[in-house]
């Protein structure tokens, strides 16, 4: 019932959606409407990554991509062949372009990795060797290098110290600068106990003193894992990537068969095919475009998350995000603004709204909670009541909110004003011998407000007329702007949204309706949440959620996509498969879109790559055989100038298309939340049909250029 209510609201609201980038991290490029937009692409990166691309020509590296390994082997073969016939310029040219094809593929991967490298370097700076002040068994401090720390060690950090390792605060409160990790320059509060106890190695204590219990081994800290992730060192092929590689390998085998069996066919037809020509045909036919860009697409997908300050612990999680069909969203901070606001003052009979507003404002002057502020503001804006400063009310005695009284208020000029939960205020009025019939009316109003999803706060006064209820303040959860549209979009994408809240079912229902979510879980305990996830998963659905508390950890681990907030506990961060450094739960929606975008980019380039083959056949087959079967020249529908030029043009097109598509692979296909039908129609049109037509045009243009070269 009390799962994440008020105590976590301030942490939720620290997540800002328009945060300035810092240092030389790439910009989290985010347009105003929150769409998944293309990332940045800098052509200079291509030049800078060139040496790395050459290093990747090592066959031990090449063999990881079956398609490009075939091209690599073909390049070696044609080069060797060219040495046996050094005067054959055609062989040399084809060899050169085949090598370029391989290099372009490596370049794509190197560029994708290069972007992560820059980020890793920034992180390494933060990780510079630290000295830890370890508390020894006897209680005295000793200075040891950060790398010598073991799990369970206690270390002391004071203002100016860099925290030597990941851990939980066991003593004290401190403000900590976490900008090295999150890029957020505003300091955060870390304190012992509760859900804000986790500190990260490499961050800096700005004030006060804390004692931290180390929870991670040196070398395995959050920052270490972050470096490994953004560098791609820990990258493993995802399930879908493996399956796609199988398809690509089998297509390569099919085309290998088609090419390997061609020499006897040609011999029979009365012509001889050189090795160079056969390799050229093979390279054109196997799906080199997607083969070359596949790993770059995967790396870039992770990178797009990093740009949004989300760390995915595995590529598998990014892929799963695309498949998610149920989103569990916390009400507070995600669907509604962190805090409830006063929406109206409802007086009981015989009391004017102005009187009620005046009393409410007075009682809230000392209340620094956002709810309290909103009462003051509403009274000012709607009833023109000037906000009085506490100083001008001399002799006022402020009554603060306590868990026992559940009321706050003020005693001034012989009036005692109280504001608080219905039951507490009514009890107070009765104690003071107040009138009961008014209390009944106030209870009815409060009930109505509660039923509409609001929170009622009763205002009562005791003066010379005795104790009585003046009326009710209607506190309302304010649904964030644009959420309803966002949820409608998700629905069109086939994703069900479930609001998780600690509110009672009545309140939850009202807010769920206002926000337009598909379902809600009221009075949610961590166990309820876990049960919901399991229930959804039993139906074969993939579930995504966010969480930050230690009690969220089991659910985060159970969910297919569990996004832990960076402000959360280390248990939560450990359990989730993503960490949001901005601690912005709304980002879950973007994560899903990035997952989908990754899969779409893969599918689009695969389709494009396979569709390309048709044109290449129409270029190469007539070039090879029109001499013996003149009728086959009918297939030369592009009217390419000569057989050599036709083959060369196809090979050049095949290589250049990789370079041309590198930006698309890195930025990802533009994604809009549409239904599967419309997405498929659109992408089939662009990448399927486009993939059929583009090479006809491209090869023709290259042929026109190549034919200008003298001697052709």
């Amino acid at each position, binding site marked *: 019932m009390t799962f994440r209510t008020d105590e976590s609201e301030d942490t939720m609201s620290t997540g800002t959606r328009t945060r300035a980038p810092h240092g030389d991290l790439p910009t989290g490029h985010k347009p105003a409407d929150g769409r998944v937009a293309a990332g940045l692409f800098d052509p200079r990166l291509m030049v800078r990554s060139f040496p790395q691309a050459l290093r990747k020509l090592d066959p031990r590296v090449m063999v990881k991509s079956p398609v490009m390994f075939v091209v690599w082997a073909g390049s070696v073969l044609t080069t060797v062949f060219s040495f046996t016939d050094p005067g054959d310029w055609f062989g040399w040219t084809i060899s050169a372009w085949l090598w370029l094809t391989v290099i372009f593929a490596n370049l794509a991967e190197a560029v994708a990795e290069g972007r992560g490298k820059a980020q890793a370097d920034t992180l390494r700076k933060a990780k510079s060797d630290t000295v830890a002040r370890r508390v020894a068994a006897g209680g005295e401090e000793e200075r040891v290098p950060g790398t010598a720390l073991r799990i369970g060690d206690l270390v002391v950090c004071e203002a100016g110290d860099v925290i030597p390792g990941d851990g939980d605060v066991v003593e004290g409160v401190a403000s900590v600068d976490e900008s090295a990790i999150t890029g957020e320059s505003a300091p955060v509060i870390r304190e012992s106990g509760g859900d804000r106890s986790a500190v990260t190695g490499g961050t800096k204590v700005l004030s006060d003193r804390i004692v931290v219990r180390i929870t991670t081994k040196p070398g395995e800290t959050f920052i270490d894992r972050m470096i490994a992730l953004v560098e791609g060192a820990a990258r493993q092929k995802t*399930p*879908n990537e*493996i*399956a*796609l590689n*199988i*398809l690509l*390998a*089998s297509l390569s085998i*099919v085309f290998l*068969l*088609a*090419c*390997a*069996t*061609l020499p*006897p*066919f*040609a*011999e*029979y*037809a009365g012509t001889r095919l050189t090795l160079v020509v056969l390799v050229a045909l093979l390279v054109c036919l196997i799906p080199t475009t997607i083969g070359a860009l596949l790993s770059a697409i995967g790396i870039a997908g992770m990178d797009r998350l990093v740009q949004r300050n989300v760390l995915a612990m595995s590529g598998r999680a990014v*892929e799963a995000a*695309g498949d998610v*069909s149920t989103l569990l969203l916390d009400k507070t901070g995600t669907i509604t603004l962190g805090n409830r606001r006063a929406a109206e003052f409802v007086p009981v009979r015989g009391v004017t709204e102005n009187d009620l507003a005046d009393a409410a404002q007075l009682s809230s002057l000392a209340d620094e909670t956002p709810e309290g502020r909103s009462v003051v503001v509403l009274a000012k804006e709607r009833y023109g009541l000037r906000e009085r400063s506490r100083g001008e009310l001399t002799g006022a005695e402020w009554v603060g909110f306590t868990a026992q009284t559940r009321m706050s208020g003020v005693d001034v000029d012989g009036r005692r004003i109280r504001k608080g939960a219905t039951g507490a205020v009514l009890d107070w009025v009765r104690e003071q011998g107040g009138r009961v019939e008014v209390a009944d009316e106030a209870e009815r109003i409060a009930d109505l407000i509660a039923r509409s999803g609001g929170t009622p706060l009763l205002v009562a006064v005791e003066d010379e007329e005795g104790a009585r209820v003046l009326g009710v303040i209607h506190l309302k959860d304010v649904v964030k702007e644009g959420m309803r549209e966002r949820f409608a979009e998700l*629905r069109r*994408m*086939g*994703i069900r949204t479930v609001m998780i809240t600690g509110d009672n079912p009545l309140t939850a229902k009202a807010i769920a309706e206002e926000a337009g979510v598909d379902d809600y879980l009221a009075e949610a305990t961590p166990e309820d949440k876990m049960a919901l996830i399991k229930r959804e998963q039993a139906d*074969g*659905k993939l579930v995504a959620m966010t969480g930050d508390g230690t009690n969220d950890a089991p659910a985060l681990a159970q969910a297919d996509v569990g996004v832990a907030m960076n402000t959360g506990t280390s248990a939560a961060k450990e359990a989730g498969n993503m960490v949001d450094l901005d601690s912005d739960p709304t980002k879950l929606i973007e994560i899903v879109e990035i997952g*989908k*975008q990754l*899969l*779409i980019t*893969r*599918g*689009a380039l*695969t*389709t494009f790559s*396979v569709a390309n*083959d*048709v044109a290449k*056949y129409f270029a190469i*087959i007539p070039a090879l*055989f029109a001499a013996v*079967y*003149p*009728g*086959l020249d*009918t*297939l030369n529908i592009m009217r390419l100038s000569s057989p050599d030029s036709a083959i060369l043009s196809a090979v050049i097109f095949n290589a250049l298309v990789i370079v041309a598509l590198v930006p698309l692979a890195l930025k990802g296909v533009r*994604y809009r939340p549409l239904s*599967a*039908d419309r*997405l*498929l129609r659109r*992408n*089939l049109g662009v990448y*399927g049909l486009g993939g059929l037509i583009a090479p006809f045009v491209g090869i023709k243009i290259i042929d026109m250029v190549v034919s200008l070269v003298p001697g052709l």
Partner: protein
Amino acid sequence: MSPVLSGVLQLLALVGALALAYVPLGNHMARVYSSKTHLRAERWIYKAVGADPDAGMTWSAYLRGILAFSVAGVLFLYLLQRLQGVLPGSLGFSSVTPAQSFNTAVSFVTNTNWQSYYGEQTMGHVVQTAGLAVQNFVSAAVGMAVAVALVRGFARSRTGDLGNFWADLVRGTVRILVPVAAVAAVVLVACGVIQNFSGIHEVGQFTGAPQQWNGGAVASQEAIKELGTNGGGYFNANAAHPFENPTPLTNLFEVFLILLIPFAMTRTFGVLTGSVRQGYAILATMAVIWLGFTALMMWTEFAHHGPALQAAGGAMEGKEVRFGIGGSSVFAVATTFTSTGAVNSFHSSYTGLGGGITLLGMMLGEIAPGGVGSGLYGMLVMAVIAVFLAGLMVGRTPEYLRKKIGAREMKLAACYILVTPALVLVLTAASLALPTPPHSMLNPGAHGFSEVLYAFTSAANNNGSAFAGLNANTDWFNTTTGIAMLLGRFLPMVFVLALAGSLAAQRPVPVTAGTLRTDKPLFSGLLVGATLIITGLTYFPALALGPLAEGLAR
């Protein structure tokens, strides 16, 4: 009536008849394969073979059943031919040679019906009826069983149980093939197909030379030959022979029989998976390819240049006058786009492009609509590949019929599509590269190449039709086509059943608005494209050097 109009009307009549039979037959087959009861005759059979028809089988048990049954079938058929000389009712024919017995046994058990013998000069009544005709039934039933097992893989979840092979085999035979074939045989007899056990008649021809005419149980065998997409003719001339296919009406009826079960099985698939719309999408894919190539075939045959051809109203060489170009084209496409391989005209004599269409039909894997059972499972594997290619474009990892297509599923589907291209291309290349095999080619140039390519394409895809013009009765071709038939039939079955097992073990994925809709015209279009591009591209160089070189010659 112009020949073109007559051809089009025949095609329309055929489509109408198939449409009428689609729902009732499809539903009936779905009921048969999900039936809980056993007929008395079926119980006897189960008792005789010692099978428990109610025991669920894993994919490997199912496969073992198929292999055991097929090995037994090959052995029985082999021995029957080898012992023909001592069996009664053999019309005095001697035992068949070991090589030919083996080739024929494999050919009929694999539903290929490649015939390296002359039916009327080699096989007596006993071998024809007790051997070949029986395999015509059961080899078809095996194909249907495998298809049903795959459909169950999609329909079931979290189970290893793909059904019982023996029950599927026996029910397919007893409740589907036998009743329909019986009715069809009566229709054929009524239309003039012979059905007797008479001996050999010697008849003087008007050219003077004597000719032998056999009697035989032709109508009954013809019915199952077409219905089971077998294609092995009673006579060497196959469905061009007037005793097998006497009139344009029987011709159209036989084409109807060829296409009947393969198309209707898409309905069965829809019913068993709980969504007839999914069945319609597969049906539409098959129908578009089949109709498209039938139209193309008619066009290329009717429009052929050359004065002699124009005088005859098109390319009439190798075609029967009673069927004309329309009736022959419809038959040729039906027989090669299924695994039938019966012929009512000589594919070798078609125009270059027309011959190419018959080749392409087989190369597509015979999936439009394909053989009984094999057409459906072939198309479903293709759908798995198409879903994988394009499914990612909706932003989810690929799924088909609520099942995820992951690495294992992809591996099996990829292996499936590799088998026949590997067999066809490697064996064709070897035949051309080796010194002796090319001597079998009776024509030079591109046409000769097509002959060899056709032989292996036909064998590996279990079609069984021959292009003619190739002497395939040599050790090389007997052995290699035999290997192609065996591997081309059973290797894909291994992959299909393993795929079925993998799918059945999965938990179904819920369908949402984000799911790729596979029951829409868009998906059918995608499937047509994927089929043509992937299989078409595999064979493009080979097709270019054969039929295209010939058809585009100027």
